[in-house]
């Protein structure tokens, strides 16, 4: 049970030119306190991301500032630090679904349309959050953006259709998938699209030319990956636009 949404802990930490400020809010749950980096904006949309990065991401923060400048508020809860978990894929399973729900609840209280976003294996977290939230609050979330989702249960056996994590295909949330062209996962993205849609989600996929998976988190980024990372906010805005079109069709 959520105790309270605590106020501002510190704000206006980093200003760069006309870029938006970052604030921190703390969400207290029964088990822990979750630090949330907030990039405030006046617009009607709020992007709730779950970067399991121990609060260290750089590309995500730059993207968040750019989105906030364009009126899209961004929240980035630091889930790993909240539970003192290492940056391992197995850590995702130890993050309680209830607390993900508390964060969604707090985001919805702003009155904005809330979209979820995550990249790589962390996409499991937002699918789990969406599934659990929808059970008691159907049709309250606006959609989800999955950046290069990595949702196989095991390594894909040659000649056999892949098995996905249990959370795949369990939500009705409109989903937009962005996948790199230069990754083997590009060849399975249509299969994943079908699997995600099994729960009733309208799923759209866009393959980004000339970039690999994890394109905005690479130390060996090539020119295409650098350019796409610098324009990631634009890609996300396009994704949100198409997700909003799905809502209009419903």
């Amino acid at each position: 049970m959520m105790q309270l949404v605590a106020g501002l802990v510190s704000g206006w930490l980093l200003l760069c030119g006309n870029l938006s400020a970052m604030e921190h809010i703390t969400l207290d749950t029964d088990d822990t306190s979750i630090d949330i980096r907030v990039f405030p904006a006046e617009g009607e949309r709020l992007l709730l991301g779950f970067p399991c990065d121990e609060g260290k991401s750089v590309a995500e923060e730059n993207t968040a500032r750019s989105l906030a400048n364009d009126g899209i508020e961004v929240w980035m809860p630091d889930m790993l630090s909240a539970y003192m978990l290492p940056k391992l894929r197995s850590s995702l399973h130890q993050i309680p679904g209830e607390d993900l729900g508390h964060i969604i609840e707090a985001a919805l209280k702003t009155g904005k349309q809330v979209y979820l976003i995550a990249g790589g294996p962390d996409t499991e977290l937002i699918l789990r959050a969406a599934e659990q939230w929808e059970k008691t609050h159907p049709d309250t979330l606006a959609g989800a953006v999955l950046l290069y989702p990595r949702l196989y249960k095991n390594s894909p056996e040659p000649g056999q259709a892949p098995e996905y994590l249990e959370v795949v295909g369990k939500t009705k949330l409109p989903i937009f998938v962005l996948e790199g062209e230069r990754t083997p996962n590009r060849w399975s993205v249509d299969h994943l699209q079908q699997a995600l849609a099994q729960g009733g989600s309208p799923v759209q996929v866009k393959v980004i030319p000339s970039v690999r998976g994890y394109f905005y988190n690479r130390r060996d980024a090539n020119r295409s990956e650098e350019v796409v990372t610098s324009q990631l906010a634009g890609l996300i805005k396009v994704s949100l636009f198409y997700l909003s079109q799905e809502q209009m069709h419903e």
Partner: protein
Amino acid sequence: MNKSVAILLVFLSLFSSSLFAELHSVEPPVAAPALSLPDTDGTLHNLEDYRGQVVLVQFWATYCPPCIKEMPSMNRMQTKLADTPFKILAVNMGETLPEVKAFLEKVKPEFTILMDETGHTIADWKVYGAPSNFIIGPEGKVRYTLFGGVEWDDDKLIAQLKALAN
């Protein structure tokens, strides 16, 4: 001291298992999907033409680090199997000829590289990751599969392939 040795042995066994992963037996063996693709010189290769040989069909890409790492061991594997009816057909996954040729200049594989620029065989063969490997028996059926990079010149693997050829 004993504890250190035990830890070292566990580490070595984990390390070894990743390098020398075992082939997964396909039971019962299934007919291999069709495969007819040009090599980097434009010569068409048809899997059917290699009936009677053991064929390693591998799906790989230049952006796949394990694929790159294991290629030298595939060269050595081919040398070790020189007296065995054996062929490697390494299918590139959807890249362009200039991209692949630039890569081959550096890595210098000594086996046949096939081009599938549209990626149509990837779906036919149900490939969802790289490298994905299929061992085709002399009768044209898939006998083993293996996902991920390995040291292909491992003696155990070589023995398995020789046994399959005979």
